[in-house]
């Protein structure tokens, strides 16, 4: 994709000049001077008194507090426009296809399952944030050269509808293996690993649990047991799952370790007991990153935004808005969040290198086993 024969280019150039001349009001063909310097701190960009608006690209479920960026604008004079661009996978793909000529300045929401793709495409300009010393060490270890900055962590786990199981006096499923039992036939709904990052994390959890030799068989059994695969997490959780406000029909869903507090904190009236619970042994650790998109016009400003995103104030907003754990160890967690959410001691994990090399192969296998 990157190497084009010079002849084609020059030929096209001639054509371009002819055609563009014919096209009316072709004004916004932005030719962005790419940021040459990869050394973050020596970078210079636009003049300080020019009003800058940064575009923060994020996945659709990026919903921090409404005025969260006001403080940033007040301190730096830089405005932030949030642009939502689909699910995490789609977001990364779009960014990859426009690598070097980005649609925004900072991207929020590449997780450890997608990180290899972003780094391969050289999406980001490396930057060591001023908050580096305070960030979670295991999360930082995934980005040895600060190619991207960790911003939050979470766990993708099996959630279940407590009342549904209590009413029927059936024990809830506590392990991945249990889900293939006929007790739980036609009860599980999973977001597709192809488009959704929790879906992918769950698929990786099964590979971590049953090994590369065993996971295919596991999914064959899940399929026989009537697993429902839907496009995205929102659909799985809010439409099909019986424990959420959507009142769907299936009492077992792939969601987050921190989903139960959401059911408590945002429900009205607040239920007496937590309506949903998490199966701790099924969790896969997810780390999300933000990065400065290579080619941004506002490198220095983007660096300031990364600092802000990892700063205590912003990090403390995350648990109750995005239902994830802050990555900044100095951030305090809200009491009700700690009370209702589950943080597994030893979540399932896979080697990022292995994910990078096998992801497409696995997803193809998944599609063939489960979907067709």
């Amino acid at each position, binding site marked *: *994709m*990157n190497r*084009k024969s010079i002849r*084609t*280019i020059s030929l*096209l*150039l001639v*054509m*371009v000049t*002819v*055609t563009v001349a*014919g*096209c*009316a009001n*072709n004004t*916004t*063909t*932005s*030719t962005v001077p790419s940021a040459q310097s990869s050394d973050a701190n020596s970078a210079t960009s636009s003049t300080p008194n020019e009003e800058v608006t940064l*575009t923060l*690209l994020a996945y659709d479920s990026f919903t921090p507090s409404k005025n969260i960026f006001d403080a940033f604008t007040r301190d730096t004079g830089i405005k932030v426009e949030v*642009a*939502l*661009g*689909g699910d995490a*996978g*789609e977001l*990364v*793909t*779009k960014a*990859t*296809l*426009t690598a*070097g*000529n*980005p*649609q*925004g300045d900072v991207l929020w929401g590449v997780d450890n399952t997608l990180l290899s*793709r972003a780094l391969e495409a050289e999406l980001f300009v490396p930057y060591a944030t001023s908050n580096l010393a305070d960030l979670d060490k295991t999360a930082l270890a995934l980005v040895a050269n600060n190619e991207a900055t960790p911003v939050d962590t979470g766990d993708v786990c099996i959630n279940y509808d407590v009342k549904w199981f209590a009413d029927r006096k059936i024990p809830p499923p506590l392990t991945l293996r249990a889900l293939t039992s006929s007790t739980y036939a036609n009860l599980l709904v999973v977001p*597709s690993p*192809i*488009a959704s990052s929790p879906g992918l994390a769950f698929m990786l959890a099964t590979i971590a649990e049953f090994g590369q030799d065993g996971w295919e068989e596991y999914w064959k059994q899940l399929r026989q047991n009537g697993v429902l*695969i*839907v*496009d*995205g997490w*929102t*659909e799985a959780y*809010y*439409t099909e799952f019986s424990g959420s406000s*959507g009142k769907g029909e299936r009492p077992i869903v792939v969601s987050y370790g921190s989903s139960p507090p959401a059911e408590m904190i945002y429900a009205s009236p607040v239920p007496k007991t937590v309506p949903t619970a998490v199966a701790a042994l099924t969790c896969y650790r997810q780390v999300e990153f933000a990065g400065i998109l290579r080619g941004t016009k506002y490198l220095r400003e983007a660096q300031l935004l990364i600092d802000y995103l990892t700063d205590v104030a912003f990090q403390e907003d995350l648990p109750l808005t995005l239902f994830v754990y802050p990555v900044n160890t100095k951030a305090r967690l809200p009491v009700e969040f700690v009370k209702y959410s589950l943080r597994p001691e030893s979540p399932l994990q896979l080697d990022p290198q292995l994910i990078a090399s096998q992801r*497409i192969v696995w*997803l*193809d296998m998944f*599609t*063939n086993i489960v*979907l*067709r």
Partner: protein
Amino acid sequence: MILAYRRAAPWLAVVPVIGMMLFVVAPALNIFKMSLRFESLKILTTQTTRNVVWFTSWQAILSTILVLFVALPIAAITSNFKFVGRRALISLVSVPFILPAVVVGAAFLEILPGSLHRSSLAIIAAHVYFNVGLAVRIISTRWEQIHPYLDDAANTLGASTIRTFLTVTLPLLRTAIISASLLVFIMCFTSYGVVRILGGPARSTIETEIYFRAMQLGDVSGALIMSVLQILVIGALILLVTSTRRSKNRHSKNSQKFGQSVYSRLRNPRSIAQKIFVITIASVSAVAVVAPLVSVATRSILLREKLDTTAWRSVLSDSTIFSSLMTSLRYALITVIISTTIGLLGACAVVYGGSRYKFVSVLTALPVVISAVTLGLGIIITFDVSPIDWRGAWLMMPLAHCLVAIPIVMRVISPVLRDLPSGLRDASRTLGASAWQMWRTIDLRIIRRALVTSAALASAVSLGEFGASSFLVRHNNETLPLTIARLLSRPGDLIQAQAYAIATVLIVACAGIIAVVDRLGTREPGF
């Protein structure tokens, strides 16, 4: 052709040729070149590919057969009987064909029970709905030309109606049926929007697989190879269509002079059986066309089984939806201007330039062979190196709409221009008109209706375009079909109702466009 016209042909051809070379041929060649470089050619032999190709093929075959079953009775009544609303019925069954695929998908989500969502059945039903109009138009055009005396002769010799149909009518309709089937097959084979909306994660045609590989999996090489496969299959099919068309046209030209102007097949239904037949078919098909559309509109004003205009109010007040409405209108305008201009230039070049300019018509038909999805992918991977790094330029999306519209514009304008009686031009030349005066007062005046028709169709294409757009969309230039697809994939009654409100807007727009096209009475779009 007049000398001045013939001399102008090369100049007329410049812009269409360069445009097509740059935005269609270059990206297509690039796709071929890049896909050859990958060792992932082995993807062609994988289980996934076999599954996708198998599903794409069988659903297309089944859809085509069903379309014929539905279209034949409708064509039978519209080409044999006079009845009130005959022309309206023809227009009505054509409406779905011009509707955005996303809207048809949404309509079927609404009328089918939840258990059928994301099933092959839903996809096939939507394909039938979508394509019946196309088949009816092609078949009835031929049917109307069959000389009524042939039927009478068969009857006199004692053949029953059914026997007459099987032994006389059907053989004469053969070529029309074949070319209709091939076209419908291509439409179903390359279906994208319908499958994206109704297929869920499980059902994938080659088109959706291209999108899925490139945009969701991040496997661009796999997507490229799928594109090549798609181009080869459609290319072969189009060659088939044009060859059957050619023989059909030769055939129909004779009978047209012989039959249509003097004898009309259309008779009043006489026997009770005929009356029942006409009434049943006409009313059932009208209801079948209208019901899904009405259900879309109803869904937009219902929330929790109660009448509620919140969705409509939020559509008007929601800034993102409003901005996608404005984007759609702006792009439709750009598409109309650019595609009718280029189509007009191309059509003039082809007609005035004679056989040497046949390549212009082949070139401008290429976007049909290279599907919209492939076009989008090709543009993204081609214009990605500075100084022509255009992936982010908003203009690429309306340009892609133009590329999809140009083949249609060409096919509306060229025949009118070609059939223009040469005596008119000779007369004006004798009277001393300059070439420019002649063109303005004769050619332009005669193709004016065709121009309006093609502008209307181009705007419909732009308003509904989903394939290329889903590749070229950026965060700030979503068009209405993209907004519908995004809203439909989200839970929540209000959000869904908003999607249906937007779909209603598009349905009304397309119905208006069909009305314009049919009132002008020019030839139907097609290949």
